[in-house]
């Protein structure tokens, strides 16, 4: 009798012990933050994973990918793949990443009537607000630069993996799309490591996976374009990119006029519209990046029409008068 009691008790307690062990193992996630300098800005990542070693390895792989893609997309580095393309004549073999980004840029460029234009590299070089603030280029130089742009001057041969510029004085600059693409690529690395996280790429956000490894969403703020250190609104977002374009991050003022970094390809000057900031959310960070730039330049009515051509994407426009336009059904909490 004692033996049967013993057997029953041991069996019961083994089951209990195994159950308690599962309780102990589940629900514990580690987190870490890291920052690095790339793509002309500071990247800041908050990563969540099952253990410290996994997160550390993830951090190393993210750093490697950032450094690799910078050698592909940099306009400033003389030996980047993009610079090689800008300096060469005829078809140039390029990494597939350049073709991926150009295709997105060409699509958004065409649908936005040229508001997004990655062929204004000469114009951007002329203004170069980050390195040459406080100088307004000469009108003659602006017109010369404008004579050498146009997305129809890019020829892509996907089969050969080459890109040609039909105008040798036209320079391609991917600043409006590359950071979004970077976020999209880094997201896959985060997920491949079994982790999740928030990647802040100089103000572009790439949300990776879910907050708790299950289905909890992220709480994201949108900077106040009138007071950038404050948050204007909050959104609850899943696994997606959130990209905001605005004139408050990079600019200089001269004689009471603010000159910001988002140039209108039609005028050659910083864009002017009724939008103070344009935020686009969606599955592909490169598309979000391109669309937010185009929307900011276009203004409210044309921006809303543009986004309608991309059903998987949502928008939040903060207008110059402080009012808000957002995709129907988007839950937005506006800070008072």
């Amino acid at each position, binding site marked *: 009798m004692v033996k049967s009691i013993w057997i029953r008790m041991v069996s019961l307690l083994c089951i209990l012990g195994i159950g308690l062990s599962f309780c102990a*193992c589940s629900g514990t996630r580690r987190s870490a933050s890291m*920052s690095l*300098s790339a793509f002309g800005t*500071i990247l800041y990542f908050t990563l969540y994973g099952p253990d410290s070693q996994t997160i550390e390895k993830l951090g190393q792989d993210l750093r490697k990918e950032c450094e690799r893609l910078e050698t592909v997309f940099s306009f400033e580095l003389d030996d980047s793949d993009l610079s090689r393309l800008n300096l060469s004549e005829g078809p140039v073999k390029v990494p597939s990443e350049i073709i991926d980004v150009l295709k997105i840029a060409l699509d958004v460029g065409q649908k936005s009537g040229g508001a997004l234009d990655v062929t204004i590299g000469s114009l951007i070089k002329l203004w170069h607000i980050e390195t040459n603030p406080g100088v307004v280029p000469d009108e003659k130089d602006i017109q010369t630069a404008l004579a050498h742009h146009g997305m129809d001057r890019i020829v892509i041969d996907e089969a050969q993996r080459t890109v040609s510029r039909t105008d040798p004085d036209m320079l391609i600059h991917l600043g409006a799309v590359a950071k979004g693409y970077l976020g999209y690529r880094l997201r896959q690395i985060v997920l491949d490591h079994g982790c999740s996280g*928030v990647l802040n790429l100089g103000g572009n956000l790439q949300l990776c996976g879910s907050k708790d490894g299950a289905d909890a969403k992220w709480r*994201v703020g*949108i*900077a106040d374009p009138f007071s950038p250190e404050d948050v204007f609104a909050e959104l609850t977002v899943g696994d997606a990119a959130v990209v905001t374009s605005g004139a*408050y991050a990079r600019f200089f003022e001269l004689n009471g006029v603010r000159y910001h970094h988002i140039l209108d390809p039609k005028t050659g000057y910083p864009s002017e519209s009724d939008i103070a900031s344009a935020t686009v959310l969606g599955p592909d960070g490169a598309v979000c990046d391109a669309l937010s730039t185009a929307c900011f330049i276009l203004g409210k009515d044309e921006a809303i029409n543009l986004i309608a051509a991309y059903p998987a994407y949502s928008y939040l426009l903060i207008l110059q008068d402080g009012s808000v336009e957002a995709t129907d059904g988007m839950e937005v909490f506006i800070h008072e």
Partner: protein
Amino acid sequence: MSDRKKLFIMLIPIALILIASVLWIILSHNGSPKSGYRVACIYQNGALTEEIRMDSLDQAIEKTIICDQGFNRVRIDKTSVSVFESDCPGKDCTAMGTVESEYRPISCLPHRLVVVIELRDSDPGLDGVAG
């Protein structure tokens, strides 16, 4: 040995297993949400170099952070962080002003400096700020 005594001896290891399991659960859940606190974090060249717990500050502190390219002066108080002086060329860091939100980094690219408020041991507020 009597049956009672045998039973008692068998129960000892079982009780030990139970106690160990309960202790394991308690200790392994040290990352569970508790009432949290905010820390001002300073990153230089990508590495976290300093963490200051903000609720422990009775008055604002100022720090000068020097790198090969120059300096930044940082102010941290109970509720906010700011870079109030710098010799960097663009002055994007000082233009950022005072930041009170978590995960809203102030960056000085030429000096590779990031100053940011992070949450510890807490259900976080905002996870990030776009813009």
